[in-house]
């Protein structure tokens, strides 16, 4: 896309829409410095997400490598404006300037994707449930499929619908529960909130497990 519009829907008012051009792309080299040193106050990104952005499943630290840069930048802004609450992330990004946010995002977006590594023997029934939700949804509970917004193979669509394929399952499950609890509400127009709050615990675990095993076929970068 030549022109990328980035949207933040504020509060319950869908009309409260701020469009800003993210044309002024971040500088990945400057971003790498921030990744290694942090914002001057908190822990550096590298401590949990790694220099390669692979993250860590056990810690619930998401993979950032290969994610859309504007999506990543929006998450950092969300920690700072309170629309995404994390006691771990919040203290570490408060000092970042807008330019630094974009630099960090550009750096991780450009890293090569490494899919989450999972045990060899998944639970077959859980995989089947996960696959059903990802590809078909569960309309009896009014749950559209993941693919219908996150794209075929859940590889992500633009800045608003992030890649889910190959993401760590602990993190995916955590986030779906954060939406349910209201500690994450930085989704445009509450599009994810509605779906997340209709998911059962078993569905959350299944969808997280299945998504984490989906192949990531894209190379790093935009």
């Amino acid at each position, binding site marked *: 896309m030549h022109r990328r519009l980035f949207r933040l829907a504020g509060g319950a008012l*869908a009309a409260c829409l701020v469009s800003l051009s993210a044309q002024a792309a971040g500088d990945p080299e400057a971003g790498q410095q921030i990744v290694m040193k942090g914002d001057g106050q908190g822990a550096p990104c590298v401590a949990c997400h790694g220099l390669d952005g692979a993250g860590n499943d056990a810690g619930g630290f998401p993979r950032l490598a290969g994610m859309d840069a504007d999506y990543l930048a929006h998450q950092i802004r969300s920690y700072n404006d309170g629309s995404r609450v994390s006691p771990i992330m919040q203290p570490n990004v408060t000092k970042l300037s807008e330019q630094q946010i974009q630099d960090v995002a550009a750096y991780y977006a450009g890293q090569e994707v490494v899919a989450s590594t999972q045990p060899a023997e998944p639970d077959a029934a859980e995989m089947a449930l996960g696959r059903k939700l990802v590809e078909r949804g569960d*309309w009896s509970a009014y749950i559209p499929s993941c693919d219908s*917004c996150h794209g075929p193979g859940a590889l*992500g669509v633009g800045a*608003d619908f992030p890649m889910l394929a190959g993401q760590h399952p602990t993190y995916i499950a955590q986030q779906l529960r954060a939406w349910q609890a209201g500690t994450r509400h930085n989704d*445009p127009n509450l599009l994810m909130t*509605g779906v997340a709050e209709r998911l059962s615990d078993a569905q959350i675990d299944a969808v997280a497990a299945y998504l984490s095993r989906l192949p990531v076929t894209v190379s790093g970068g935009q």
Partner: protein
Amino acid sequence: MKTTWYAMLLALVAAPLQAQDVKVPVNLPPMPEGKYVHEAPTLEDLEADESINPELKKVILKGRDMFINTQQFRGEYVFNDLSCSSCHLGEGKLNWSGPVWPAVTTLPDFRGKNQHVNSLEERIAGCFSFSMNGTPPEYGSDDMLALAAYHQWVATNAPVYERNIGGRGFGHLGREMPADISYEKGQVVYEANCAICHGEDGAGQKKDGQVVFPPLWGDGSYNWGAGMVRVYTAASFIKNNMPLGKPGSLSDADAWNVALYINSQERPQDPRYTGDAKETREKYLNFHKYSMYGTERDGRTLGQHDNTGSKPFLKPAALKPRTFE
């Protein structure tokens, strides 16, 4: 929220979708009493049903696959970016989303749109000719049989010629546009709620060449003869299905306004075009009195053009009158 016996009954009968504290409720219209409410079989039902011949299962599954991913026939039957499932959500089974099974149980019947008695295959052919801006599989062909078989399986156990059907079609807001309907307000609604997926230009979004969010106007969308160009059809679809996962979140007025906005944009020509949009509108006024086709918008007559999108012809051969004279 006051709980009435009726609401409790609804909660028991329909899926209990509305909890007290949800942030995004599923606000669908109440199912009027006395309507037949269909419960379509699931894919798991099909797989488990040993009474269905394996060969038939194959055909039903092929039809299902055609329905969900109709884009596999791009350039053959389909000349825009839509699939059947773009408008018929939930694999064509969802109430208030134009569930497709009534086409099985209520046809053959006379249809006002083409003024003759239609079969199921002919009804499906209509979707390909208008909504998909294409041309249908041949009547009686393997592909048409597969699609018909899928429709018929979805209709399993529905009463034949029952017409009092709950959640059918797209029309619960009525047919007449409100007197104060507004294109300008519709544009505001569109930009706040729809553009994030369907784009400011209505062209939808693709990922790696595959359609994710279907186009709402322009060459990739339904043509001027599709049922969805009727403002009431789009308004009801939007009200009960959009934004995806948030049914009933727009007010009736917002749904009408945004439907008007979307359906006042250009799109491929109506296959019934006579060469003059105003004349074509008059000729098919029983249909077009609900659309903006052949009317003026910003000094232009909507639909006055020769653009058939990527379809290299205007009218598919399958569109022909039928008479028993």
